[in-house]
């Protein structure tokens, strides 16, 4: 058993007792020890908790208990989901040292399934960013090229997968934070339908857009994790009380004959790197060979999605982040006995929040303020309606929509960190999905010829039809694997010290 195996293979080996869960966890900790000083995917390791969970799984297996398919398989958890007793920082100084007193529903489901949570992964502060450079604890480095970004906000989770530090990871996606990191690291990530996976215990950034989801190195592994964490949760008022589509069966089916695949005209052209477009088009050609029917669709209002997103998300964030007031948990600065609560609050929020978070709180406060509300937040909400209508019309003509996930491959660390608008453009193809609450997947479709870096292929499905992404993703992945002769990650340079 190697750390380069898939989660499904690890699951088989565990079931056959070829390896124990403790041995598997230790193999991954050895890899983390060897490479994470360079990659910096993790903010915190919970070795004691992970080994205790692995021991308990091994004991249950030895006793012949029936276990979930992923029991004993290790996972990296994005540091925006609370895990009882384990530090949860959201990449912010505001929560440094905070240990939550409860588990997120996603974490409860992972624990119940016997999954071994290795530690918490790095991210842009409060999930605001596309490069992980906004983490208060320093950036994560892309395992394909350590001078480049691993995407964001979930760059720690994507880098952990690409560096073989974990076979599974959890991300959250508000405007592309699962899919864009997957794209630039050559891994797979899915943003489920909004309401498909509980948000209870997910530290809120933009409540109407946030969605937790599965990340892995293969479509099947992603599906296995999706099945584990999805489902109705009475603790989340926006949770959908509806059966979870059988994404695992869909991932295994590998048959897209007669399926209508729509190419969104607006998610191409200006701003898209040539190599990204080429790899995308080659992947579409593979789908045609497999018998899919290609339809070109127009979604004219997608042009306004980015602008609307950068009003809606900051507006909701300005309200959500009001809870970091230094009173009940987290950082408190300047409480010398003489200063009043408001002054302490002001000083704490100055010291605890980074630049991007402040920028968005101020922008949101402006967009929601009397006199500007209609022009900004109100108009953005209308654009949201138009985007939904564009999707509805498109899905009348096709079963799924496809596009490149991100307009470019991984850029250099520092290249865009002083230009917020250039940074925001990374999310141009992923944001429409969040605005409409539908499902989106990114899977690797090759290396761009200019820089030999991974390109992501995005598949979008109607709400609660998440199985369609896995159907197309599974078929495309198999076709590309046959073409390449080995998984895309095997083309990545070996990290120093890697096992």
């Amino acid at each position, binding site marked *: 058993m190697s750390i380069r195996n898939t989660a499904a293979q690890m699951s088989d080996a565990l079931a056959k007792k070829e390896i124990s869960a403790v041995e598997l966890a230790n193999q991954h900790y050895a890899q983390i020890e060897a490479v994470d000083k360079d990659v910096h995917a993790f903010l915190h390791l919970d070795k004691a908790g992970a080994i205790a969970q692995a021991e308990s799984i091994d004991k249950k297996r030895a006793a012949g208990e029936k276990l979930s398919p992923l029991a004993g398989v290790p996972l990296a958890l994005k540091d925006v989901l609370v895990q009882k007793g384990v530090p949860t920082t959201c990449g912010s100084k505001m929560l440094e040292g905070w240990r939550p007193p409860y588990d997120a529903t996603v974490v409860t489901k992972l624990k119940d399934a016997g999954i071994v949570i290795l530690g918490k992964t790095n991210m842009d502060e409060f999930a605001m960013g596309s490069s992980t450079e906004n983490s208060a604890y320093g950036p994560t480095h892309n395992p394909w090229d350590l001078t480049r970004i691993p995407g964001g906000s979930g760059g720690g989770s994507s880098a952990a997968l690409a560096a073989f530090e974990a076979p599974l990871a959890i991300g959250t996606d508000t405007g592309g934070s699962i899919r864009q990191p997957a794209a630039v690291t050559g891994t797979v990530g899915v943003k489920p339908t909004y309401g498909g996976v509980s948000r209870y215990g997910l530290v809120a950034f933009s409540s109407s857009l946030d969605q937790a989801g599965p990340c892995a190195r293969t479509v099947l592994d992603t599906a296995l994790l999706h099945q584990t964490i999805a489902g109705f949760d009475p603790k989340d008022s926006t949770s959908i009380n509806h059966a979870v589509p059988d994404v695992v069966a869909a991932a295994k089916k590998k048959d897209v004959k007669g399926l209508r695949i729509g190419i969104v005209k607006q998610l191409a052209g200006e701003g898209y790197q040539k190599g990204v477009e080429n790899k995308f088009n080659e992947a579409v050609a593979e789908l045609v060979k497999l018998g899919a029917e290609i339809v070109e669709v127009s979604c004219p209002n997608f042009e306004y999605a980015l602008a609307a997103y950068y009003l809606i998300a900051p507006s909701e964030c300005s309200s959500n982040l009001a809870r970091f007031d*230094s009173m009940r948990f987290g950082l408190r600065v300047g*409480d010398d006995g003489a200063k009043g609560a408001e002054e302490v609050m002001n000083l704490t929020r100055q010291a605890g929040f980074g630049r991007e978070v402040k920028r968005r709180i101020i922008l949101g406060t*402006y967009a929601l303020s009397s006199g500007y509300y209609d022009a*900004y937040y109100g*108009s953005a909400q*209308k654009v949201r309606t138009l985007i939904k209508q564009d999707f509805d019309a498109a899905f009348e003509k096709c079963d799924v929509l496809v596009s490149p996930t991100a307009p470019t491959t991984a850029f250099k660390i520092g290249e865009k960190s002083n230009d917020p608008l250039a940074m925001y453009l990374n999310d141009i193809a992923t944001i429409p999905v969040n605005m409409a609450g539908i499902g989106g997947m990114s899977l690797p479709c090759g290396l761009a010829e200019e820089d030999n870096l991974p390109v992501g292929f995005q598949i979008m499905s109607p709400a609660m039809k998440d199985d369609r992404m896995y159907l197309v993703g599974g078929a495309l992945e198999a076709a590309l694997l046959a073409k390449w002769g080995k998984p895309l990650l095997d083309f990545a340079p070996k990290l120093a010290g890697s096992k």
Partner: protein
Amino acid sequence: MSGISRDEVANLARLARIEMSDAELDHLSGEMQVILGAVARVQEVAGADVPPTSHPIPVNNVVREDVVVPSLSPTDALSGAPASAEQRFKVPQILGEE
């Protein structure tokens, strides 16, 4: 849509309860000009006839049966508090002197 002034940004920071240095205010007002200029595009298509969408799925008020279920103990609830006393959150003065 006219630009945003440094004074307006200072007022927003006050409303958002974030202390800001002069340097921070200078920098942020410049950035806000640029960002607002870009996002104002939404007004081009937001006609009076378009209904707003606040949520991707219809949201209903959710209530549960009024029965007692386990919840956080006072110790757990206070475990992350910057300061506490007598099973309560201890906060700086809120009403000023006297």
